[in-house]
């Protein structure tokens, strides 16, 4: 599903440069649920951004579903993102002047889907996250948990191969975090491959595999016994 070999990335800081990723090797199979962990500055977000094609590696290979991701033009990257990836952000990143339904439909808009079909499909996904009644509401009228559920519905809308979550529970309280995690686990149960960045141990424990980064290298990569979020709800 996902193959990463000897990935390097550095950022220029003034005259010198900051070596953020120092040779990452990572392989993720279909249906996995991986938590990438590490303290801030460990390079975990950079790794996720490269996987998400939002950023480009300096060195190394990245193969997604058999497709080498290298030297992409912005246009191609956009198409790949749209086709293969679903994003869930810490701060939800919903477009604040669009209704929940329209937010969910946005990736489909960029796929060129007709409005009617698009809104139907978006509605289907909103129903799945249990927010069908809130379809016409603007993000500011929703609670944090609801916003994140809309964001999840949006990430799912284009039926991506890989779901990328950057601290999906970072802005939520514990109870809501568990609700969201329960939902993500449910998606994984259905077969979605999920890659998540987090620094919370209890959230990581709810994944099936934990990858720990420190100073740009993987120091630990282990399978864990998944804790079902349902137990906390």
């Amino acid at each position, binding site marked *: 599903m996902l193959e990463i070999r000897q990935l390097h990335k550095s950022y220029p800081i003034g005259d010198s440069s900051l070596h953020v990723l120092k040779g990452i090797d990572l392989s993720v199979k279909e249906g996995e649920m991986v938590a990438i962990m590490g303290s801030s500055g460990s390079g975990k977000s950079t790794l996720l*951004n490269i996987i*998400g094609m*939002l*950023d480009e590696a300096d060195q190394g290979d990245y193969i997604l579903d058999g497709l080498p991701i290298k030297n992409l033009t*912005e*246009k191609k990257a*956009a*198409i790949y*993102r*749209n*086709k293969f990836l679903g*994003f869930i*952000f810490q701060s939800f*990143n919903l*477009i*604040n*002047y*669009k209704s929940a339904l*329209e937010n969910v439909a*946005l*990736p489909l*808009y*960029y*796929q060129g889907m007709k*409005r009617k079909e698009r809104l139907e499909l978006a509605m289907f996904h909103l129903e799945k996250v249990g927010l069908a009644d809130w379809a016409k509401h603007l993000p500011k009228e929703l609670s944090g948990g609801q916003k994140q559920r809309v964001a999840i519905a*949006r990430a799912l809308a*284009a039926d991506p191969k890989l779901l990328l979550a950057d601290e999906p529970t970072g802005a939520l309280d514990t109870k809501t975090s568990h609700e969201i995690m329960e939902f993500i686990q449910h998606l994984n149960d259905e077969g979605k491959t999920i890659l998540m960045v987090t620094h919370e141990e209890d959230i990581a424990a709810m994944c099936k595999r934990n990858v720990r980064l420190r100073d740009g290298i993987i120091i630990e990569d282990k399978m864990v016994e998944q804790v079902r979020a349902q137990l906390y709800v």
Partner: protein
Amino acid sequence: MFRFLLERDTWQEVFDSLSKNKLRSILTMVGVWWGILLLIGLLGSARGLENSFNRLFGDFATNSVFLWGEKTGMPFKGFQEGRRVRLSLSDTRKVAENVDGVEFVVPRNQNQSLVVRNFLSGSFSIAGDYPLLDQVEKKKLIHGRFINQSDIDDRKKVAVISDEIYKQIFQKDEEAIGEYIQINSINYKVVGLFEVPNISMGPSIDIHIPFTTFQQVYNEGDQIGWMMITGKPEYDIVQIEEDATLLLKNLNKIHPEDNRAFGSANAGKQFGKVTGFLTGMQFLTWFVGIATLIAGVFAIGNILLITVKERTKEIGVRRALGATPFEIKRQIVVEAVFLTLVAGMFGIISGGLILIILDHLFGQGADAALVNASVSIAVVFIALIILVILGTLIGLIPATKATSIKPIEALREE
């Protein structure tokens, strides 16, 4: 390529993002609205002014010149300087025959006489004229007719009087046509009443009588006071005046370089000055209007640039969701064009309203300052097309800026 313009989604996106911040959108439009309003208002006023000048000159053959004799300024062929020059009817004929481009030459005699009717009297300027005068200086007749050929042939004692005279020697609402007035104790029958023109070359005339009558009554013989030369439209009236003057100097034994022998009033020259002024004003109008318009479009570009900065994160999200740079650019350009167009339309409409108001204030009556202040549809369309082009160009700046940032940096923006 432009199929997207017909899609509801495109416009939904534009509408959404513009209505998101109405104040911003409205402020953005004010610049262009003001620009096009000024352009339309100025162009319309300039046109109105031009029309009003044209109306003033309209009754007047603008390619004509009035010539009269004065005193010589140089001794020539045994004559002393200071000799009085009198033109004659034969001069008139020779000018008509020999000068290139002359349409016709009309002689005139003129003096100041006492006019009496019953107990009212006044001193007015009397001119002996040919019917042809009507073609040089179109007379607006309120009642009756102008002098005709039969008046000339029979030396009839008839008079065409101005409305000013009518007011002075007639009672209010009194019928003037057919009445008699005395000019230097000779009775003349009033056959016409004309309106004093807004503009006239040479002296203003109160009463026109037949040239031949004048000749006889005042014992003028062959002598004339004036000649009015009208050139053919394709000839330069200034050149005609030069040629005619030279010929007349030759005929009257005047030094060729004597500039004081003849007086003249050249309508073409005067008219040229006015048209030059109008052209200048029109240029100024266009310049100011277009400069304002461009400033307005730049305002749109400027505000869109700020907007793009504000929307960096949104653009980042859209790109993470699969929007290509082209799609992002396209949307910003469509927004810019849409804003300029809507603002432009409002500008055109309000410019039209301003012209209507100007017309009501200054465009009424015979001596209105602005006549039919208006802008042609072609100009409006050209202005709109320019707006679309400028809007596109100016929209490209923020659009390029928006996509030059990497999506990851855009997302990081708080």
